[in-house]
């Protein structure tokens, strides 16, 4: 409970700063409009105007909230104006990519811990692959897939799979190697086979590492999907919402898409955290 008060204070401060900034940044437009109409605004009118513009430089918090409410609850969820619809498009590609990426990471990690050749040849390149800003390749991946007739969910999922694969690989390799020599020797003294040692010792002891990586990976997968939606002229998904908002100067639309994406990321991370707690409790590892 000792956290609630400080967090609330900081959030209140952020909202206050946001309002002040909104007034400051939108004032120029309001003044220009008034000058064009040959009227002068009182301070009160000026503030009221800055907080209710159609296309503000910085929309005020209540405008974003109204935009969010309209997008989430004000439309039919199948409508193209509904944020639920766009969020679902993004979420489905994210989940598909996350599943592919984390499975690939786990499989490769198992191979790396069991084969010296794979460890020495694959691992350095897996590390090097991360210096390629994959998001730069996003437009190309999408164009390539489109040219062979694959569009929609799969190309975006490939990008998020690539992004979520590496954290899982690194975490899982670390996790599978946590059992120390003593424990491995104990398994050997029970004449356990390699697969028994894997299922009964290595895999369980890697779980805390796996979940820590999965949380990072799911957030990365969402970023991958959103960026994958940006450049290829996609018309649905939160990334496309951001892009069309930026084309037409619809700032409220950008901000509501941004907040939906943030909520989605937070929700996914919390979901993984919940599964983690459940699993660790059943394994008797809960703190």
């Amino acid at each position, binding site marked *: 409970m*000792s*956290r609630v*008060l*400080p*967090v*609330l*204070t*900081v*959030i209140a401060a*952020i909202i206050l700063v946001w309002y002040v900034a909104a007034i400051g940044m939108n004032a120029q437009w309001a003044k220009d409009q008034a000058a064009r109409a040959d009227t002068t605004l009182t301070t009160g009118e000026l503030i009221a105007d800055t907080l209710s513009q159609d296309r503000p*430089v910085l929309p005020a918090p209540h405008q974003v909230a109204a935009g969010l409410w309209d997008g989430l609850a004000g439309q039919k969820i199948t409508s193209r104006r509904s944020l639920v619809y766009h969020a679902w498009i993004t979420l489905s590609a994210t989940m598909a990519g996350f599943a592919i990426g984390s499975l690939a990471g786990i499989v490769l990690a198992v191979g790396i811990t069991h084969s*010296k*050749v794979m460890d*020495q*040849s*694959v691992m*350095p*390149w897996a590390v*090097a692959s*991360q*210096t*390629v*800003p994959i*998001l*730069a*390749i996003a*437009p*190309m991946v999408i*164009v*390539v897939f489109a*040219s*062979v007739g694959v569009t929609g969910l799969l190309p975006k999922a490939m990008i998020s799979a690539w992004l979520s694969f590496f954290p899982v690989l690194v975490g899982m390799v670390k996790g599978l190697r946590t059992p120390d020599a003593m424990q491995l020797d104990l398994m050997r003294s029970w004449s356990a086979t390699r697969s028994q040692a894997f299922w009964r010792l290595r895999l369980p002891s890697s779980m805390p590492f796996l979940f820590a990586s999965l*949380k*990072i990976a799911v*957030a990365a997968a*969402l*970023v991958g999907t*959103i*960026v994958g939606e*940006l*450049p290829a002229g996609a018309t649905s998904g*939160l990334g496309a919402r*951001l*892009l069309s*908002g*930026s084309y037409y*100067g619809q*700032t409220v639309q*950008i*901000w509501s*898409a*941004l907040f939906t*994406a*943030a909520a989605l*990321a*937070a929700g996914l*991370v919390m979901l993984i955290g919940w599964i983690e707690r459940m699993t660790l409790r059943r394994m008797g590892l809960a703190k």
Partner: protein
Amino acid sequence: MTALPIIAVWLSAWGLNAWLARFDTRLTRLLVALIFGATILILWEMIVRAYGVPSVILPAPSQIWASFMANTSILWVDFVQTILKGALTGWVMGALAAIATAILIDRSPFLQRGLLPIANFVAALPIVGIAPILVMWFGFDWQSKAAVVVVMVFFPILVNMVAGLAATDAMQRDLMATWSAGYWQSLWKMRMPAAMPFLFNGLKITTTLALIGAIVAEFFGSPTRGMGFRISTAVGQLDLPLVWAEILVAAIAGSLFYGIVALIEKRVTFWHPSQRK
């Protein structure tokens, strides 16, 4: 039949690696990694040639290299615009701001309890999404890209730096107190050095983030140069070898950037257990 030489190359390279891996020295480790990388390049080239894959789908490494050599001046201009001006400026500014904020937060337990959960939360959000807003505010040139990078690198560095400043234990702090060291003395001589491994962890994570932020922000509007601009226009003209050449530049720049930070880390935190041989 065209698949036979490809499989033969793959199997022989794998066999060579399997044989080399048994020695497990520094040299063979390097060799194994190099052979693996070279094998992928050779297989890639062979597959593209043997099956006549159109360069629109996947250009061969030789075509990419030719495009790289033919367009060095364009690539250099893009490199300066995106990496040096956008990514690097933003990264330095973001890192300095994060370190300063961390020291401020560190003085106030109230702020620490209030700001840290929010910073942790923000660090996990898709911050790239703010790119259209910042491009709208700061214009199309590199300033808006640097602004995106500042916001993207700020929170990971902040979270790491705050953890680093808290890394000293009570015994060490008491020792400083018995020497009657003031706040600034103990900050400068004890807690800053102790925070360095954490700080560099954050700095290393954010090197790739900086590149990504600068490139992605260019999709929302840029002058007629820059890597993001070039990638999106070259894709439009189906000039895939040029796109891959840009990716090659990004990969080299990313590795160098990471490598330089890691090298500085080695110099600064030579005392840390993780640096021991």
